[in-house]
């Protein structure tokens, strides 16, 4: 395969430690601008070590969903996790969030093992993650309330983060009164308000129309660079991954394993319709093709049985 050296570099595991390409301007020769090894950020923000998950199906068979996933995410990195449906990419986020337990292996945040949910890692769901019995403001307040922040600080942060997603005027609305894109922005504000180190995003824009999604890509990129948080973003949309990510990790179809790791060094801000983005996406997609076919085969086999 003929990789575009400028936009994409294939690397073998383990991951080498580079500073995030945050804020790198439109340089033609991006790779030269990046310091190749940094002495300060060698410790990954998030480290997965042989993370394995298997569960019992209804017919009492053990199904291996995730198989020895090893993954490092650097501080401030925007990592996209891509794979065919059924590869367990959402499950992987749930494991990182501590909502499910790993069968074996470990997950470390700042080299400390985690097994329980914590407000240092906030998950944003595909949809319906907002609490319909609370107003927009109260939704944003929720995590801070659970953390035990004072009322005045909560009020201040509600305003701050709602302003960040441009929804301050909807503070007293109910989630059902907003459109899908606005709801995801509230979810983003709710997650950010707890000031997490890691944002876990589970296909957050999959249910939105294309224009809204484009807008939210811009906003997410802006917020990411303003807050400096680390993001693990799951999607099945390769182009979206190339549009957003510093790095893309490809997972295989069941059992999910890390198949390939791409560094995306295209200059930011990117746009989803740019030819560079499209070309890079095409290359990633070629690599993903086999897995997609396997996933489809499994699906058809199920139908015909």
């Amino acid at each position: 395969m003929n990789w575009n050296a400028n936009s994409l570099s294939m690397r073998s595991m383990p991951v080498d430690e580079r500073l995030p390409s945050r804020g790198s301007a439109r340089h033609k020769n991006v790779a030269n601008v990046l310091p190749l090894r940094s002495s300060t950020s060698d410790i990954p923000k998030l480290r997965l070590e042989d993370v394995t998950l298997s569960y019992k199906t209804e017919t009492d068979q053990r199904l291996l969903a995730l198989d020895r996933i090893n993954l490092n995410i650097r501080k401030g990195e925007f990592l996209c996790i891509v794979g065919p449906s059924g590869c367990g990419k959402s499950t992987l986020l749930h494991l990182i969030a501590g909502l499910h337990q790993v069968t074996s292996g470990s997950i470390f945040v700042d080299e400390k093992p985690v097994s329980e949910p914590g407000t240092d890692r906030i998950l944003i769901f595909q949809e319906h993650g907002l609490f319909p019995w609370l107003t927009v403001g109260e939704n944003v307040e929720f995590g801070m309330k659970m953390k035990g922040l004072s009322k005045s600080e909560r009020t201040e942060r509600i305003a701050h983060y709602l302003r960040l997603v441009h929804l301050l005027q909807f503070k007293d609305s109910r989630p059902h009164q907003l459109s899908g894109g606005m709801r995801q922005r509230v979810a983003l504000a709710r997650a950010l308000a707890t000031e997490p180190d890691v944002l876990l995003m589970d296909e957050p824009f999959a249910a939105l129309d294309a224009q809204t999604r484009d807008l939210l890509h811009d906003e997410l990129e802006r917020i990411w660079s303003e807050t400096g948080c680390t993001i693990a973003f799951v999607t099945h949309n390769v182009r979206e991954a190339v549009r957003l990510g510093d790095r893309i990790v490809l997972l295989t179809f069941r059992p999910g394993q890390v198949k390939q790791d791409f560094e995306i060094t295209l200059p930011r801000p990117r746009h989803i319709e740019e030819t560079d983005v499209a070309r890079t996406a095409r290359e990633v997609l070629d690599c993903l093709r086999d897995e997609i076919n396997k996933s489809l085969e499994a699906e058809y086999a199920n139908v015909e049985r």
Partner: protein
Amino acid sequence: MSNARGAAPELKSRATAAKVRSKVTTGVRVPPSEDSKRRILLRSVARQVIFYGALLAIWALVVEAKIWSPYLLPSPKGVAIALWDGFKDHSFWIGIAVTMKRMLIGYSLSVVLGMIIGLGVGSSKFLEETLGGLLVSLQSLPSICWIPLAVLWFGLTEKAILFVVLMGSLLSVTIAMEDGRKQMPKIYGMAGRNLGARGFRLFWHVLLPASLPYIVSGLKQGWAFGWRSLIQAEMIFLSLGLGQLLMMGRDLNDMSQVIAVMLLIIVIGFVVDGLVFRTVERRLQNKWGLSPVS
């Protein structure tokens, strides 16, 4: 107007959001005009007035026809006088107060207990298969059947009556809580835990409100069962209350009083069900953006 979702403008971007903002903040549902709303309400009230008027007229005519003697079928006027007298000598007020007090205590107990048992059953496979099955089978037992045991255990005290009320509504509440726990979208629990809610706070701030729309009908049913059980218990177990007033009417062969008390029981039941529970349900649906069942 169709339902709320149909009428909700789908805001596509911030630019358009600004334009339609006023619509959103003033409520997405485009309400029917005040005038047509009033007309619909007026028509419905008129129908009901005519219906009940006709019912009263037929009753009065049958009494006038003197087919049955007045002690078998009292006249509407006799019932009205019985009502008036009952309220004037305070016996009805006392009866209502005593009955309502028992109802409130018994019902509150059953809601608290039902919540605990229901959540336990809803969250444990073992309890669901054992206790859950028992609860469903117990529901076919009219709670008045507990009276002999209740009197034996608690004597002729308030506790015995409360026990019967409790047994009447507890099962409905428990089953409703269990259902609510199961039907509630799992994502709310996950989101709550994700945002740092644990244990009791997770229950109080997330699981309970999230299951509320699913348990309100169970709470309503629990109230209805409890109310019936209470009146039945009071009729057997003489100690003030509306049930006793009804039985007193029977002992004095005063069918006007019997019917008057029956009317009171109906009206109280209707008011609580129609006003309290309906309002709660409607509020909930508005808050959640569920289309109201009208």
